């Protein structure tokens, strides 16, 4: 299962890199003669209300989704790991303060927070990535903190301290590498979550703005033309489904591989 996930993930990378070579059409070329065509040999996934080839737009949409997924998760993982390391290692009031921040952030329905922030700023792909990342670090922070709390008590940390390592060196060289495995799992699953969030935002018209194709905003026109053009709704949705599924399978696979308890 995990291998299937990995293969799909790699395929998606290949597809989004090669998108311009895989299709003869331009993702934003408007063609008044081919408006809302059902899928055919010429247009495998049909065309949208402006006569653009849906397959092409889905292929180019993969670029946006992957970009958003990775950058957003990168931000979340960096911030979460930093907070978790500091809170877990120093403990005391630093720990309490940081963990209360996590609690507060967790109180906000994250989708509300994202929408509100984007309402005040102009939606651009960079802002969306930043906001998804900045509202998604709390889980990672908790995970890392829990790991650090356990690692901190190990003998090798004591040994490192005895030979005069600085705090920074202990944290970076001795604790961080040992605390990273749950982060890897969370990051893989996080990519799936970020892709879902971005598509929902774009679907609501607050995410990636047209004419840039994203899976979410193709579905917006799918909703508008739901009575005439099922293909506009079906294919981008399937693309999201397959991508998210692949990342989830990969994440679960990594979890099983890293966790000795689930090994058979």
């Amino acid at each position, binding site marked *: 299962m995990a291998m299937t996930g990995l293969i799909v993930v790699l395929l998606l990378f290949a597809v989004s890199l090669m998108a311009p070579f895989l299709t003869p059409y331009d993702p934003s070329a408007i063609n008044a003669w081919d408006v809302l065509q059902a899928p055919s040999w010429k247009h495998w996934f049909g065309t949208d209300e402006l006569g653009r080839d849906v397959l092409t737009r889905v292929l180019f949409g993969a670029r946006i989704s992957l970009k958003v997924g990775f950058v957003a998760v990168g931000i979340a993982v960096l911030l979460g790991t930093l907070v978790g390391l500091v809170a877990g290692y120093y403990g005391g009031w630093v720990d309490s303060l940081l963990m209360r921040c996590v609690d507060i952030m967790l109180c906000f329905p994250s989708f509300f927070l994202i*929408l509100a922030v984007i309402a005040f700023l102009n939606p651009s792909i960079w802002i969306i990535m930043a906001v998804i990342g900045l509202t998604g670090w709390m889980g990672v922070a908790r995970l890392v903190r829990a790991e650090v709390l356990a690692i901190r008590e190990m003998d090798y940390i004591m040994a490192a301290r005895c030979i005069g390592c600085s705090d920074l060196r202990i944290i970076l060289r001795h604790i961080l590498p040992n605390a990273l495995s749950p982060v890897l799992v969370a990051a893989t699953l996080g990519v799936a979550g970020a892709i879902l969030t971005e598509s929902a935002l774009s*679907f*609501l018209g*607050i995410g990636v703005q047209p004419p840039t194709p994203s899976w979410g905003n193709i579905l917006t026109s799918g909703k508008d033309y*739901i009575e005439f053009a099922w293909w506009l709704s079906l294919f981008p949705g399937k693309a999201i489904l397959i991508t998210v599924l692949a990342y989830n399978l990969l994440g679960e696979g990594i979890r099983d591989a890293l966790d000795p308890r689930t090994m058979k």
Partner: protein
Amino acid sequence: MLVPLMLGITLITFTVIHLAPGEPVDMQMAMNPKVGKEARERLTKFYGLDKPLHEQYFTWLGKLARLDLGRSFSSDNRPVLDKIKERLPITLSLNLVALIIEFGLAIPIGVLAAVRRDTILDKGITVVVFLGFAVPTFWLALLLMYFFGVKLNCLPISGLHTLGYESYSWLGRLWDLTKHLVLPICVASFGSFAGVSRYMRSAMLQVIGQDYITTARAKGLSERVVIWKHALRNALLPLITLLGFSIPGLIGGSVIFETIFAIPGMGQLFYQGVMSRDYPVVMGILVIGAFLTLLGNLIADISYALADPRIRQQ
């Protein structure tokens, strides 16, 4: 413990207001030419934008404490609190029904998957659960709308009532409302269904491995009593915490399904507020949504203590 959290919530909400580059008033003007001079003054006055930041924060906090959320910028210019009050019950009752259906289905399915571990049934459930994790809810809503609304044409796809429903008898009205609610509730309860059943499965697997389950079996209790009485009760405990955690997701998810199905709830109000940059509405709902989550977590903590004697004794 509650007070600092609440203060933190207001602090973050306040920061969000001030995220906008330049003054929110100017941005409001730039975004929406319809906003006149009067609205501009009202806005400046409401946030006290001429004062230093900390003073603005405390003024706003003071108003919040008196439940004064300001007035909406939209044409009706009503107090935000009134607007939220008339929409909150719709969102809450919808989510409550969805939650009951979701847990009512997810628990038995999770238990079944755990009991029949590694059988075809378990694998089938796992596949469905993974698909469930990956389906975007708004896409599911679209598919359901297409299938039941367009293709079969048997369920309405927007709003809460048919036009002219006032003339129906109460039974007719109830039937009308139910028909309108079937799809939204399906979508809402689907949201975290996969997660809950997965969680239930692993909680159940852990409990089944415990010694007291072996004891119960050794006593000669029937498998039914062992699973549904001894094991289930203990496996349900962590689910209470999950219930608390799922509240922000539900409230956040209501934006999506209320917008798609045109249901006049808090999520739709929030979405409209975001689209028209109706600041007081957005801020008000953000704060209230967070407080509701806090309240939900508190209730979850208390019920956990009530349900688990080990915690009660501490």
